[in-house]
């Protein structure tokens, strides 16, 4: 009996292993193993379509990327331009929209919230198609609007000067509502007492915004910005449909450059090294994000 009991308590103590093991094993197999595989590959030279196996090259791929590859530098520059041109704008516009919607108490708010959801949950490829249609130089809506304003038509995604801003504009359309939605949820979960107190003290609207709303909302703002920042590095679908990285390299962010090296040029070793640089960048942001989530429970109104 005593033995049975100790077996029972042993079973109880380690029951978690049974629950967690399948998922952890699967993740090790499909994520960690491939990542180690690609780390190894990144230390080799290997072109998948040419005959011949892997050739050990040590850190050569990384050295080439960091010190010799001028295209990498261009891709890096495009990536940062892309981030700078989208995330801050999405945040500012999203905050504005959230502050407006926060005041709407009528029934229409349900409809408005639903509309906010769609751009970010829509099939990204379809978002790309929508904007390809809008930007079409011959029949597109945007050139029609320009015509109405008596402005000359633009070759939106087709010219090196306007291609990047065009992709950014589509990105801003896709993700600003997401920012607004999160910030609105954050606003709705704020405690009411500080606002009531400010009202009693006769604070102006601008003061309330500056000294109460924004500071209280800051954890949600940080999370929203970090998520967007991290996901922006991974933008692929939109660029694929709108420009395929071109014209030239004008819209080729690091993510797309890596894809091209792997699946257009088939330099798997070099592409693996590039992808590991991306992993490092994204991991740093992910760590900051996780630390933020861990340090404090961040609340937002879901319903």
């Amino acid at each position, binding site marked *: 009996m005593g033995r049975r009991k100790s077996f029972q308590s042993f079973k109880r103590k380690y029951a978690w292993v049974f629950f967690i093991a399948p998922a952890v094993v699967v993740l090790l197999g499909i994520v960690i193993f491939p990542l180690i595989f690609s780390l190894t590959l990144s230390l080799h030279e290997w072109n998948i379509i040419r005959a011949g196996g892997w050739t050990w090259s040590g850190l050569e791929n990384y050295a080439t990327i960091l010190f010799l590859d001028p295209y990498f530098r261009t891709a890096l520059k495009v990536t940062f331009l892309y981030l700078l041109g989208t995330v801050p704008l999405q945040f500012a516009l999203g905050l504005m929209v959230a502050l407006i919607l926060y005041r709407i108490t009528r029934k229409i708010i349900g409809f408005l919230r639903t509309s906010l959801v769609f751009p970010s949950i829509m099939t*990204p490829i379809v978002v790309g198609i*929508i904007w390809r249609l809008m930007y079409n130089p011959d029949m597109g809506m945007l050139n029609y609007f320009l015509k109405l304003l008596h402005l000359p038509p633009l070759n939106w995604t087709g010219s090196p000067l306007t291609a990047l801003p065009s992709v950014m504009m589509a990105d801003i359309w896709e993700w600003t509502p997401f920012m607004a939605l999160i910030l609105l949820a954050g606003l709705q979960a704020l405690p009411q007492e500080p606002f009531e107190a400010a009202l009693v003290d006769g604070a102006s609207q601008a003061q309330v915004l500056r000294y109460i709303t924004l500071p209280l909302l800051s954890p*949600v703002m940080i999370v929203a910005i970090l998520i967007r920042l991290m996901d922006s590095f991974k933008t692929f679908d939109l660029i694929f449909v709108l420009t395929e990285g071109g014209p030239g390299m004008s819209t080729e962010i690091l993510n797309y450059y890596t894809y091209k090296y792997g699946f257009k040029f088939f330099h798997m070793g070099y592409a693996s090294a590039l992808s590991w640089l991306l992993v490092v960048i994204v991991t740093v942001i992910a760590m900051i994000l996780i630390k933020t989530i861990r340090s404090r429970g961040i609340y937002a109104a879901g319903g």
Partner: protein
Amino acid sequence: MGFTTGKIKKIIFVVVTVIVFSIILFPPIFLFLTSIKTELDALSFPPKWIFIPTVKNYVQIFKTSSFLRYIVNSLIVASTNTFVSLALGSLAAYGLARYKFRGSENLSFWILSIRMMPPVAAIIPIYIIMKKLRILDTPWCLVMIYLTFNLPFIVWMMKGFFEDVPREIEESALIDGCSEFDVFLKIALPLVAPGLAATAILVFIFSWNEFLFALILTGTRATTLPVGIILYMKETGINWGYMTAGGILALIPVVIFTMLVQKHLVKGLTLGALK
């Protein structure tokens, strides 16, 4: 005086709201309008606002292209993946929510961090491995690979739902002699059923929408919807009728499902960072 400034403010407020939502809603509406135009109407400039709508594109896309097969492939991949990741994910989520062991919190966050990895990093080794295993261009390679982002997502979402359930009921069932697994299956899981349904729907949408893995891992047989639609974009020109009709058809399940899970979207889209 105060009355009028208040009124002006209100008008500005309404105008801004209308402009913002027109910008959000107009592009998809334009997609829909183009999809019900004849080729001649679709290509006319300035765009035609008044035209005779046609369902020709919607009929033709099924008749003359493999669109139906793309849909079937997408359905197979998305539903199988949802099922597998829910089975694995809710088990793990329950384990992490109910048992506190050394490193349990670190393990949770490690799983979350996997969700954040750039897919392009995984795709290179995965492609090589699957090529070696000769399972490229099958729905099963996508079912498997979509676990990389859906499994961590489910673990993280469901962990939150399990933690919200008071554990007293489960504890009394354990004392009554139920096994741990029975408690999970017969008591805990039914209690989080609404959350489970919402998570399942989001996971389905993620699989349905996925493009990069599908582009690289499928060839001609297992082509999913997003990759299939792109095929109407050729060097020789874009078949706008098919592209727009295909796009609208791809959006239909997403729109319906989104309506159903409104309540959990903020949590879902932020990976549970916001509760």
